[in-house]
């Protein structure tokens, strides 16, 4: 079968079971857009290529399948750079396809030429410039393989216009035909190291499971829960891992890090064993590295061996897929007699000390000695911290200032518990992570590593496309919203009913918070405006329902109204209190021991 390169490319995507892609055409990619008309693949026309990339990320984060974004050469391709960098940091499987000028024109500074493979070399897992039309099916197969296996990540395929126009004889490569002699991702952990890990785990008195995004990538949420319940070891879930272990579980300590809660941060600091599963000791988690968890031994499981000993030396470093390694670890523990669940399941709002109540240990097994008695004082300590240092805010009845945390709590309580939440980056992101109750994996979509403002709207759209059965709310800031809001035009025209809550404090809030706390309240270039733009008018002009909320008394009604709309996007402009800060906080470069809690918890006053 003779096909053009363009037809072969689209057919290759079909072979990869791509059901949807996000993109925007242009000169160099024109040939590839023609066969899209005849394809089973749904193409969603974005308003800016950055939106295409973030939509593909949102799609990938909630479905686990690779997202596909397409753009033309030059500016189209460079507009995808931010999503690629974002996906690289957060290990999101993303396949970007960019047009390139004709091969004869490459290197001549042709119109809309940019060296996108050169530009994205450091922010993709790998990229390809196709120079032979016959390579197309093989390269597409390689690209999807690389993007989705090992540590997932973004890849880019650059296809010159003349290659897309020339013809080839169709084939589809067998797995053995992939030309990747240097790519052999590890999957299973070394059994000897897993045994060592089991020994450390059984000997620990103050262990903490430090669960990262790798749990979700490896689809290891069930295995993690089994591990936690069988051992009674408490779990912290990083920003990238929210939802991988239920917040309502008595063993869940919530999010650690710069804006993590006191107990999660302090549990790690005082721990004698960190069981890092698919987490990478990011600086936002560790604070000052030399002062991080000084008494802890470290078991570090990661599919990327380069993460081992990068930031923190591991006592046992296991290279492997988190799900497989945790399952191996469970078998190793079982071999040592630990075979019965220690903790009770479920139960909202419990504390770690509840976790041991009423779970009889099997007599004569290790479980009798471990870890119930041994971990009891530790769990009691954690429970005491939770009681002493909860997350707090103070919402007075209207018409006083509306607290952003109150908005998140209302949203949480008025939406189905498996609602997908997407966020931008800043205070609203931290409020969302802190105050939402994540009880299901793949319900939290955010930009953790790169911290890309403007991520929320497009990623929420991509998430809704991937999971049309679920309600999708974006929690956004007013600064973020202005960066990518035009994609709501995409959402309206494609009938993608996402809901956007803007926590509109008229400021670049997180920067404002830092200037308030660390720059003597010298506010430099952080004021936006509550009503320029007019968010409701803007939303309506983009085909959305627009709602404005100024009083806490109106929050519930507005959310109900938003939830009732399912034929178009909704934007709710919540006018929130600009003075509200995110607490707790560990100042950049400080030790996690110096965590700053909400002033009201230590006798101070709140705004």
């Amino acid at each position, binding site marked *: 079968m003779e096909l053009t390169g363009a037809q072969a490319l689209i057919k290759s995507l079909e072979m990869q079971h791509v059901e949807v892609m996000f993109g925007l055409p242009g000169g160099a990619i024109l040939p590839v857009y023609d066969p899209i008309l005849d394809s089973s693949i749904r193409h969603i026309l974005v308003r800016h290529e950055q939106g295409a990339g973030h939509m593909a990320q949102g799609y990938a984060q909630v479905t686990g399948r690779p997202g596909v974004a397409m753009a033309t050469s030059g500016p189209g391709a460079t507009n995808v750079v931010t999503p690629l960098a974002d996906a690289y940091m957060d290990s999101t499987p993303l396949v970007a396809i960019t047009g390139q000028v004709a091969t004869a024109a490459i290197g001549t500074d042709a119109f809309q030429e940019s060296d996108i493979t050169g530009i994205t*070399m*450091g922010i993709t897992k*790998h990229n390809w410039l196709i120079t032979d039309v016959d390579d197309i099916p093989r390269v597409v197969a390689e690209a999807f393989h690389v993007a989705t296996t090992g540590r997932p990540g973004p890849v880019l395929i650059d296809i010159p216009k003349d290659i897309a126009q020339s013809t080839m004889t169709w084939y589809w490569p067998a797995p053995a035909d992939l030309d*990747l002699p*240097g*790519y052999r991702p*590890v999957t299973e952990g070394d059994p000897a190291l897993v045994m060592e890990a089991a020994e450390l785990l059984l000997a620990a008195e103050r262990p903490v499971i430090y669960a990262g995004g790798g749990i979700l990538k490896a689809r290891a949420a069930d295995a993690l829960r089994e591990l936690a319940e069988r051992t009674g070891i408490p779990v912290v879930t990083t920003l990238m891992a929210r939802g991988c272990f239920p917040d309502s579980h008595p063993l869940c300590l919530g999010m650690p890090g710069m804006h993590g809660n006191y107990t999660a941060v302090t549990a790690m600091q005082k721990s004698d064993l960190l069981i890092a599963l698919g987490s990478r000791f990011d600086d936002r988690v560790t604070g000052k590295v030399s002062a991080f968890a000084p008494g802890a031994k470290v078991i570090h499981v990661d599919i990327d061996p*380069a993460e*081992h000993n990068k930031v923190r030396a591991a006592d046992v470093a296991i290279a492997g897929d988190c799900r497989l390694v945790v399952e191996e670890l469970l078998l190793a523990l079982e071999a040592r007699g630990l075979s019965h669940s220690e903790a009770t399941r479920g139960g909202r709002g419990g504390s770690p000390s509840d976790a041991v109540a009423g779970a009889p240990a099997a007599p004569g097994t290790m479980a009798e000695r471990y870890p119930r008695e041994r971990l009891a004082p530790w769990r009691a300590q954690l429970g005491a911290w939770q009681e002493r240092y909860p997350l707090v805010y103070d919402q007075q009845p209207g018409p006083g200032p509306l607290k952003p945390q109150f908005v998140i709590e209302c949203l949480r309580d008025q939406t189905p518990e498996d609602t997908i939440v997407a966020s931008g980056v800043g205070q609203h992101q931290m409020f969302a992570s802190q105050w939402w109750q994540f009880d299901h994996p793949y319900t939290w979509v955010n930009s953790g590593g790169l911290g890309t403002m403007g991520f929320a709207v497009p990623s929420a759209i991509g998430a809704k496309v991937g999971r049309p059965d679920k309600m999708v709310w974006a929690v956004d800031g007013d600064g973020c919203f202005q960066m990518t809001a035009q994609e709501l035009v995409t959402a309206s025209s494609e009938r993608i009913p996402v809901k956007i809550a803007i926590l509109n404090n008229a400021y670049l809030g997180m920067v404002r918070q830092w200037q308030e706390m660390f720059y003597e309240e010298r506010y430099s270039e952080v004021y936006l405006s509550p009503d320029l733009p007019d968010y409701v008018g803007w939303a309506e002009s983009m085909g959305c329902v627009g709602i404005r909320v100024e009083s806490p008394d109106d929050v519930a009604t507005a959310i109900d109204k938003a939830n009732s709309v399912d034929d178009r996007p909704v934007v709710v402009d919540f006018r929130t209190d600009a003075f509200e800060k995110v607490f707790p906080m560990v100042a950049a470069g400080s030790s996690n021991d110096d965590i700053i809690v909400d002033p009201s918890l230590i006798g101070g006053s709140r705004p």
Partner: protein
Amino acid sequence: MNMYGTDQRHHILTVLVENKSGVLARVASLFSRRGYNIFSLAVAPSDNPRFSRITIVVDVESAPLDQIVKQLDKLIPVVSITELDPAHSRERELLLATVEAGPESRGQVIQLVGVFEGKIVDVGPAHLTVMLAGAPTKLDDFEDLIRGYGIVEMQRTGRVALPMLDRADHRGQPATGTADTTEKAG
């Protein structure tokens, strides 16, 4: 330290890569963006046309060797990485230098080149271009001595290296324990 890395700070990595365009850029870009220092880098096709071999002398004070190897290993076109212990490998490098060699010093320069078993590869009225191949330390010594006469231009290739042979093994296999090859992972 010295600028050619013939001291304890350096480690030699020989990296087998796919012989595809852009591979050298990927390696160089990795070193640059992660802040790893390179003393020298030499690249050439290997005996198999599918692969090239890059010999990199890295500064292990800029980053732990383990990190450098693992990050390098993550590059898809990198097939294998062998770390050569300088004490158990044969290293060679080539030096070309154009040296001031007027009537009064010409004889001494030629003599020095002779002592080091180098070659005169070009002759001008007031200059000589000389070539010397050998162990990097030998090149260092030569460079120090010839500098006194005035170096106009100089080029060193950066080293290439292979593991030392086991004396007891006549089949030409590298001695065990001299090379630590990293299998791909990741």
